[in-house]
């Protein structure tokens, strides 16, 4: 793919995109749930994806993984660096070769994400054996134990032999992260990985995710409701609303000077000491109308330089 450089301001160097999503639609037969979204993630870049429940964040991420539920279909284009085919048209076999290798995922709910009848070490080693990144069972287990150390599980030798029910939620989420990082993925997808954890554990988990992607040079797409989390770990931010990306840009700029009314509402609603003259907290309805009456085609607010797929891809798409 050709990278168009002419429109880029001087001094800004853009890396090769790791992920290019263009005109992605996800829906069931007649209903479109994700509507024509486009974005890119550059190699090693950390991107946050925020928006309310039902805005299409998880659908976007699961369609990149090829794990959409029954009856859901994706159209458009999802391209990944080093992958010759479009992920939207990929077969399950093609996805299997990709998952856990080029793209990996950390899920929201650690309590149910691990197989209750399999030892933790085997669950981590499995991904390396599936992709042949470890030459044999013994080596895969050694590498898995090393990963368990890296995610700072207390007493990793003992944890390796444990079953998931013997661990806390935070420990299990570390194991899930170890599984995701096992094959040094080019892109790590995190779907609210800290939502189910208590606050003290959240910070440690975020640090682990951050150091994990930094060490590997992996790109990160991080779904969250937590604006503070976004500010801590992301470089760029995508805001989704009603199945569309309504705003995109560098984190600091979006959070300090939001352009879209929805983003403005989101920021105001997150300030808990703000209230109007009646002592009422600001709500989203002060800023945007209900999704059903919301404009059918909200304008794109954000600089194409902030990662709008069409610009980066240029004529290649």
């Amino acid at each position: 793919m050709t990278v168009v450089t002419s429109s880029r301001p001087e001094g800004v160097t853009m890396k090769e995109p790791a992920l290019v999503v263009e005109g992605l639609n996800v829906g069931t037969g007649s209903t479109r749930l994700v509507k024509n979204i486009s974005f890119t993630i550059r190699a090693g870049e950390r991107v946050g994806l925020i928006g309310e429940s039902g805005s299409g964040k998880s659908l976007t991420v699961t369609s990149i993984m090829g794990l959409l539920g029954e009856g859901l279909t994706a159209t458009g284009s999802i391209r990944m660096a080093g992958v010759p085919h479009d992920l939207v048209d990929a077969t399950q076999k093609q996805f299997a070769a990709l998952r856990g290798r080029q793209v990996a995922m950390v899920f929201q709910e650690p309590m149910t994400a691990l197989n209750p009848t399999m030892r933790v070490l085997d669950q981590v080693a499995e991904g390396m054996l599936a992709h042949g990144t470890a030459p044999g069972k013994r080596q895969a287990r050694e590498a898995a134990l090393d990963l368990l150390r890296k995610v700072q599980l207390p007493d990793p030798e003992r944890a390796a032999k444990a079953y998931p029910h013997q661990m806390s939620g935070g420990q299990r989420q570390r194991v899930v992260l170890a599984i995701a990082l096992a094959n040094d993925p080019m892109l790590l997808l995190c779907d609210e990985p800290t939502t189910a954890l208590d606050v003290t554990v959240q910070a440690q988990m975020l640090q682990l995710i951050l150091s994990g992607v930094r060490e590997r040079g992996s790109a990160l797409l991080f779904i969250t409701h937590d604006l503070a989390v976004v500010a801590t770990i992301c470089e760029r931010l995508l805001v989704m609303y009603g199945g569309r990306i309504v705003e995109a840009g560098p984190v600091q700029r979006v959070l300090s000077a939001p352009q879209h009314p929805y983003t403005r509402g989101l920021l105001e609603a997150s300030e808990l000491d703000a209230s109007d003259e009646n002592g009422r907290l600001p709500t989203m309805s002060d800023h945007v109308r209900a999704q059903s009456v919301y404009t059918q085609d909200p304008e794109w607010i954000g600089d194409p330089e902030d990662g709008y797929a069409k610009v980066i891809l240029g004529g290649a798409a």
Partner: protein
Amino acid sequence: MDMLKYVGTRFVIFVVSIFVASVVVFGFMAVLPGDPAVVALGVNASPDAVAALRAEFGTDRPLAVQYLDWVGGLLTGDFGTSYVTRNPIGPIISDRLAVTSWLVLCAMAVALVTALPLGTLSALRHRKASGLAISFGSQIGIAIPAFVMGIALVYVFAVWLRVLPSGGWVVPIQDPGGFIQHLVLPVLSLGLVQGAILTRYVRSATLDVMREDYIRTARSKGLSGLPIVTRHILRNSSIPVVTVLGLQLTTLLIGAVVIERVFVVPGLGSLLLDSVANRDLLTVQGVVMVLVLAALIINFVVDILYTVLDPRLRSS
């Protein structure tokens, strides 16, 4: 330690159940009308002769003494002497039990061999024609009672094709070939119907597991197809299936009573029905106790199997 406690608790429950069962079985037989001595001698027998026979049978003693005598005998494998045939009951029961065990265990094997692959396959392909076809087939199988299946099999293989005997029994050591020939039809009648039922359970257990988050995790690692089934689905789906297996083994023991009638097989079921017809109460009591004991053993083994399959039960 937790596991020992679990197994210990199960074992205590098992032993207490056996005791309660023996009291119930004995008590039920004791309250049934009909004095064995009168039955043996006929209604015209003199009171002296009846009293003498009662003394010989030991039925003139208090019930508690009779119970302890019976249970004490059971512990050493002595089921007493039949009031009707005057033969020891123990050896007869153990011969018949061997025959019924062949039927039940082979039928269970047939059920497992058909249900595990078919049930898993129909779950994996639950949106495809092949999966629906398996579901449909198993639904039909469930609707067929074992004895109807038996009669249909006899009609096809014994009457029409004339390749297998319609009934009877051969002792395995005497004639292994003939033994297998005689085993095939009764085992299929019992096994295919149970297999159809088990297929439904395997299918729904597999579907439940397939929707679990950890299967999504396994797929997100890059696993697909058979490794997902063998490494992640089967172990987890087998936990509810084992429960059903235990129930089915018990059902098969009871089902064998009817199938042994259809195929003239000298098993425990035939013995039970014959003894009831002959008013051979002590034999009925012995057979019922053996069946109850078998059911309790099956339940106990199922409870232990859970701990093997599910690590969550092994430790806290």
